[in-house]
């Protein structure tokens, strides 16, 4: 299998217990990331390859539209795009079963779409409308869909890592054959929450896959500036098997996650994957694409060489499962879908302010006051019979 590599803790006892099943490959290291366009589908089913292509196109067009909508003020607040990292959304989330859980970061539009959430509902959420997947309460950073088992949309760096681990706990508690995928950025590795959570997953053998999207930077800070070790070293301290995959190569990513999800579902305990990728845009809409912490040349070169869509395109063409015309047709379809999403978002109404106090609690209080802001419009919950 190209572009993925696995390491396990060298210490005997732990290795014996964790039984990493990944086959180590020899292309680990700096070169791995540059070996994108292969000449085959690496054993991936052609139908799957086509589906992944469609997904990645959808993600790209969605994000481009979000960028436009932000520029004209239809979207507010923070907005973090995933452009350049589509391979990791499609290859990770796309490799799961429908009833597997996913929790992501604030850079999660595509992850939500990959889990099957409707582009309409996601776009409407970015617009802050009632038709949004979080009814306009969450916005870009806080997308949710309980029915699709998409749990967020978490805005505190690494905050979702314990949460995901707890979902894994619930799966094991009920004896289910499910997986929870926890997506995080490489900068989250420096948060204590990450460490505490991984230790739990290790000691209780929880069915969690930690997928670290290493896009080189956390805001303006390159990982090497805030760590003396590599991304794939960090989980070894807990005895969790570590894998590295080239996220720009969606087929490798997909293949690895398919296998790991299967293992986890059958009781392997947690896995940890470094997905090597690159963010083509700024950290958020207010961050310049280049100039401050990375050079224009760097961004241009990597955007040019490591576009996951181009890489898959070349593979699909080479394998003969798709040609230029089909691709263009697919893209046209996707664009239409995104137009529809934007229209849906536009026509969905803003939430009614009278519902401001909804969803804070399960229900208004039968006794006592839940809200003490003294506003007339606050639900008049509370007491009376005293």
């Amino acid at each position, binding site marked *: 299998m190209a572009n993925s590599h696995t390491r396990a803790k060298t210490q005997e006892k732990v290795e014996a217990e964790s039984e990493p099943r990944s086959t180590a490959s020899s292309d680990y290291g700096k070169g791995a990331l540059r070996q994108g366009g292969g000449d085959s589908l690496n054993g991936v089913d052609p139908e799957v390859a086509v589906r992944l292509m469609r997904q990645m196109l959808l993600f790209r067009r969605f994000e481009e539209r979000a960028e436009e909508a932000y520029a004209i003020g239809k979207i507010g607040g923070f907005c973090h795009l995933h452009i350049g990292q589509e391979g990791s959304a499609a290859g990770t989330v796309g490799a799961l079963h429908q009833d597997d859980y996913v929790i992501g970061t604030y850079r999660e539009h595509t992850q939500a779409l990959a889990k099957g959430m409707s582009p309409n509902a996601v776009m409407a959420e970015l617009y802050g409308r009632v038709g949004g997947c979080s*009814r306009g309460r*969450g916005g870009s950073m806080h997308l*949710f869909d309980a029915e699709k088992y998409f*749990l967020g949309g978490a805005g505190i760096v690494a905050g979702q890592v*314990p949460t995901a681990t707890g979902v894994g706990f619930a799966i094991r508690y009920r004896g289910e054959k499910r997986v929870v995928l926890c997506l995080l950025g490489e900068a989250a590795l420096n948060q204590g929450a990450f460490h505490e959570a991984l230790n739990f997953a290790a000691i209780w053998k929880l069915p969690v896959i930690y997928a670290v999207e290493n896009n080189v930077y956390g805001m303006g800070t390159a990982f090497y500036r805030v760590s003396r070790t590599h991304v794939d070293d960090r989980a070894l301290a807990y005895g969790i098997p570590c894998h590295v995959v080239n996220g720009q190569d969606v087929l490798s990513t997909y293949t690895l996650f398919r296998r790991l999800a299967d293992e986890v579902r059958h009781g392997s305990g947690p896995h940890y994957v470094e997905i090597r990728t690159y963010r083509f845009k700024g950290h958020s809409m207010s961050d310049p694409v280049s100039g401050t912490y990375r050079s224009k040349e760097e961004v241009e070169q990597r955007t040019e060489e490591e576009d996951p869509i181009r890489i898959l395109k070349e593979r699909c063409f080479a394998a003969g499962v798709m040609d230029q015309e089909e691709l263009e047709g697919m893209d046209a379809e996707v664009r239409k879908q995104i137009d529809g999403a934007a229209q849906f978002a536009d026509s969905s109404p803003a939430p009614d302010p009278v519902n401001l106090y909804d969803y804070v609690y399960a229900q208004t209080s039968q006794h006592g006051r839940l809200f003490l802001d003294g506003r007339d419009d606050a639900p008049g919950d509370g007491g009376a019979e005293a």
Partner: protein
Amino acid sequence: MTPPATVVQRPRVAELTYREALNQALQEEMKRDESVFLMGEEVAQYHGAYKVSKGLLEHFGNRRVLDTPISELGFSGLGVGAALAGLRPVIEFMTFNFSFLALDQVINTAAKWRYMSGGQFKVPIVFRGPNGAALQLAAQHSHACETYYFHAPGIKVVAPATPADAKGLLKAAIRDDDPVIVLEGELLYNIRGTVPEDGEHIVPLGKADVKRTGTDLSIVAHGRSVHLALQAAGELEQEGVDTEVVDLRSLRPLDAETVLASVRKTNRAICVEEGWPFGGVGGQVVSIIQEEAFDWLDAPVFRVTQADVPMPYAKNLEQTAKPSLERVVRACHRVLYGDGAWGDDTQ
């Protein structure tokens, strides 16, 4: 003390400690609902640092009673995740002093996932453990943490003062679909009281309890301070003062109506709490009283709190720093017998 209002038919009662009452609540709810589990430091094999979980491991096994590493942020977040996925975790903080480390998970995840998801997710989780100063544990181990939790919408907070309330409120908290903080009194675990054995003994969240009725003065308190208030009421009785003691029981939801009804009757009130004054519970209660019963007040509402210092270790300093019976009585006297020109004397 009035018996809890929810108990309809005459239940079997037992004389239990506060600790045993909490233990009974946990046992009953774990029996009743397979999705309830207990997690925390030393809760299983050690039966809890304060022995609240005695016998639970033996009864329910290590699937449902789990010892954790010392990772407060981690296991709090783990609990939230488990709740999101449909379980009903009860998380024990060995003491609430250590919960500062977990605050982000409580405020930013537990309290907000329902809201931010537009109501799609619920987070039925209980965070419980001893709260408030015990004896000579010094500054890092003597916090009353009310303020840190009742401040944030999305969270509920209760603080039982008696064994019966401890059982009834913990059961209500476990059954509640929102995150509930249960502040147990570290110095209350050994107090005894009558507790309904009834498995359906629930004290609803948000209902204050008038622990003593009176006409001259209201003392508003919660948790351990209720006992101080009752003692003070006893002393004042000697002087012919008839004191009403309102035990808030819940800090959020807050039973403003019971407080207001009491003050409208007595026209004078003080608030007693174990915590620090800035941003304390008292300020909130005072605000409500003066906003909504302004015309009924014959005196300002005074507050008795811990001295506004980190808790000292030395026994005598600690005693001075804690709210004392003497201080409570003195505040009552001030409210009762002030010279009627409120304000001058304090400048």
